[in-house]
């Protein structure tokens, strides 16, 4: 039951925001986790919209936002890696008639946040309202094998204005982080789906990816490259020397990605392969570190088609790049996963997948 004009904030989602959430949840491989993932994505869209409708001195950054996918149906999904000023915020979905306890996804504790916003999603009317927010430091979850943990609603603060006060002006040091727990769930980078064919037609306004053409703007490329750790053109030259021909029609893009608190830059170059009897497309992926001249040892780059691992590259000592190249038919889509593995203990520390990349010219 939803009060449309309640005194508490009720946010109407725009159709574009709903469509973003739909597109990403539909791309998930496990159909049983789609619904809860969809609700969590709506929660993030609702908060984003609420904040952008306001005038606040808060820098909001969701470019690294992640969806934490549950293992099956009926288990709440969650969102983290959203930043407001220096604070890390996570999101969880709660029912609009929660009683004395909130069901808290334990996956949120893998990378603890300063604040968690509990959002009620009114899916039929495409609206969200805010139940409360929690301070990470107040949480003390029982160690449990369960994917969710019940926490008392009394820990929450219903007045979201207070969250904004904290975000706008509180000293970072005043807000402690809760203890991290090693649970890892599948995590997805929340970004618009990439249709590589549209990159070639340069039909799109890419917000998350910076597009460039290797052929057309070599000078511009080099000037951009000067900001990079090494001259990227030499990497492409090296790749071509090893026998791979990158046609002049190829289109490239890059974006930054944070994994285990380390910032990387991911390049993708794509082109259509015409010579085969069945039309194919090619995807060349390069990963470099932004912070250091070499990649952290144990960084992995994986390419999958469905559940099938096609390529797995791992950074050894002093690796500057990880490179993966793959060719597929037009109906194949590729999922990229970046992983961070402790080189000594071989324990998986962080893992992040990009929603499937497709090549659909029509």
């Amino acid at each position, binding site marked *: 039951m939803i009060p449309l004009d309640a005194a508490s904030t009720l946010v109407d989602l725009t159709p574009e925001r709903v469509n973003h959430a739909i597109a990403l949840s539909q791309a998930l491989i496990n159909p049983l986790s789609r619904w809860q993932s969809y609700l969590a994505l709506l929660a993030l869209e609702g908060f984003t919209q609420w904040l952008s409708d306001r005038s606040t001195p808060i820098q909001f950054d969701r470019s690294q936002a992640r969806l934490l996918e549950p293992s099956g149906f009926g288990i709440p999904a969650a969102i983290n890696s959203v930043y407001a000023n220096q604070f890390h915020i996570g999101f969880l979905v709660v029912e*609009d008639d929660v009683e004395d306890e909130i069901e808290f996804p334990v996956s949120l504790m893998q990378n603890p946040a300063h604040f968690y916003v509990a959002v009620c999603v009114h899916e039929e009317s495409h609206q969200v309202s805010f139940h409360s927010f929690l301070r990470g430091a107040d949480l003390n979850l029982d160690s449990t094998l369960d994917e969710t943990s019940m926490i008392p609603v009394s820990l929450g603060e219903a007045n979201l204005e207070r969250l904004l006060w904290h975000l706008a002006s509180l000293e970072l040091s005043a807000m402690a982080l809760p203890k991290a727990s090693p649970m890892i769930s599948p995590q997805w980078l929340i970004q618009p789906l990439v249709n590589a064919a549209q990159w070639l037609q340069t039909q799109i306004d890419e917000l998350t990816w910076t597009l460039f053409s290797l052929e057309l703007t070599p000078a511009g490329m080099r000037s951009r490259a000067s900001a990079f750790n090494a001259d990227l053109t030499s990497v492409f030259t090296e790749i071509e020397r090893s026998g791979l021909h990158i046609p002049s029609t190829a289109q490239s893009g890059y974006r930054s990605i944070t994994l285990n608190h380390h910032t990387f830059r991911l390049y993708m170059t794509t082109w259509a392969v015409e010579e085969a009897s069945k039309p194919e497309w090619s995807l060349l992926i390069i990963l470099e570190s932004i912070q250091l001249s070499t990649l952290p040892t144990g960084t992995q780059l994986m390419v999958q088609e469905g559940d099938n691992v096609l390529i797995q590259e791992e950074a050894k000592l002093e690796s500057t790049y990880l490179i993966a190249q793959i060719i597929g038919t037009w109906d194949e889509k590729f999922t990229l996963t970046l992983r961070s593995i402790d080189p000594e203990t071989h324990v998986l520390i962080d893992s992040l997948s990009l929603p499937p990349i497709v090549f659909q010219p029509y």
Partner: protein
Amino acid sequence: MNELVKYWTLLRINPAGGYQTEKLAIAQTYIAQTYPDLTELHQLQQHLTRDYQNHSTEAELCLRCFISHCTLEECSSIVRQFGECYQFNQSDVLGYVLDDDGLATSDYSPLSKKILASYNPAIATLNTWATRLVRQHPALNQFLKQQGLFLKSDWAVLNSTTLKRLQQVLSKRFYWSTEAIQTATLYLESYHTVYLSDRIAEGSQGRCKEPTPEQLKRMANYLQPKLNPIVSPNQILNQLFAIAECLRQHHLNRYQTESIEDKTIQIKAEQKLVDSSSNGLDSSEEFLYHYRAQFRKCLNAALETVIQDYTSRLPGQTKADQFRTALRLLYCQKITMTQIAEQLDLKRQDNVARLLKLKTLRADVGLHMLKGLKQDISETAQNFADPERLNRFADAIDAALHDQVDALLEKDAQQSKTPKAYQKDNLFAEQLCALLSRD
């Protein structure tokens, strides 16, 4: 009321308000003559349903009487839950759904006839079915939406539940057995796989509709290897209804106890308020006394940013101009919202309120001021190093703004009188007018 009586008394709208009870002789005679010895009521309903399906108009009348009682019950329940909060009463609601004229043959098709026509006894009891269709009635929902209330469909109730919650409700409130809960879980799994995947794929449009026979069939196929014996699509629908009903009942019970909880929460909140005001710098007057100059400076900067943000976001120059004019009229010319609506050719004063969004405006100005005070005044530094202190500090700023921003609204309410807070010293109006007159 005796349950049996419900089958021969029809509830109708009373033009003078409320409803009236009408005894239908045809219905009473039919039951008395056809089923003189029947003691079990649910058997009566089964018999009447069967007769109705064999085209007995008398049996149809009996069932329509029964449905009118279900309709009243459901409407009363909606009014009990939401009437006070959303300002509607029983008569408002009944008008949409209690529309049976009690005539045996007529072209007119009241809701009760539609309920009967779509009723399948294999899926639910007539009461459940009637209740569901009353709640889904489009015109009723349209009315409720206008009042600000969006009634969730049963499917939405099912969609928002988590497995843990479902299992808790079924075991602790409804005492389902472990096996029954396991089966319910499987049904929900098939529902997620088929119905909810479809809903996302189809773009999640509007109110959730009942699963189609085709969807139910796919659910049955999904369940086939997991459930023994094989279930029919109807059984699935039946089970899903049953689960949704439990969740809805549970929800309902909660609503009925809520008012008491609200009070405890309010008491707690009041307690908090008392605690904080006994704790250092808090009242807005005290705050202004200490930080008057800084308050003025930060207010000015905050207003500039916020007004700029708001106007730039409004679609088109006309709206932006309207916004600034409305602010000027309210705070500089000090005229009421009603008069502003007239001047700006906005139909009602709530349109002015919607345009100005003063509550949000105040909150945003407060936020920017907080940031400004942090940067400008080193003495306030300690307020930003502790979340509780920050809350008290920000509360004080908000209270100071509240008095000044809302002073004008109070004035609107009591036309003749100019409130004290406004007359004495309204920094907000002063700074805002200075800002607005600059351009």
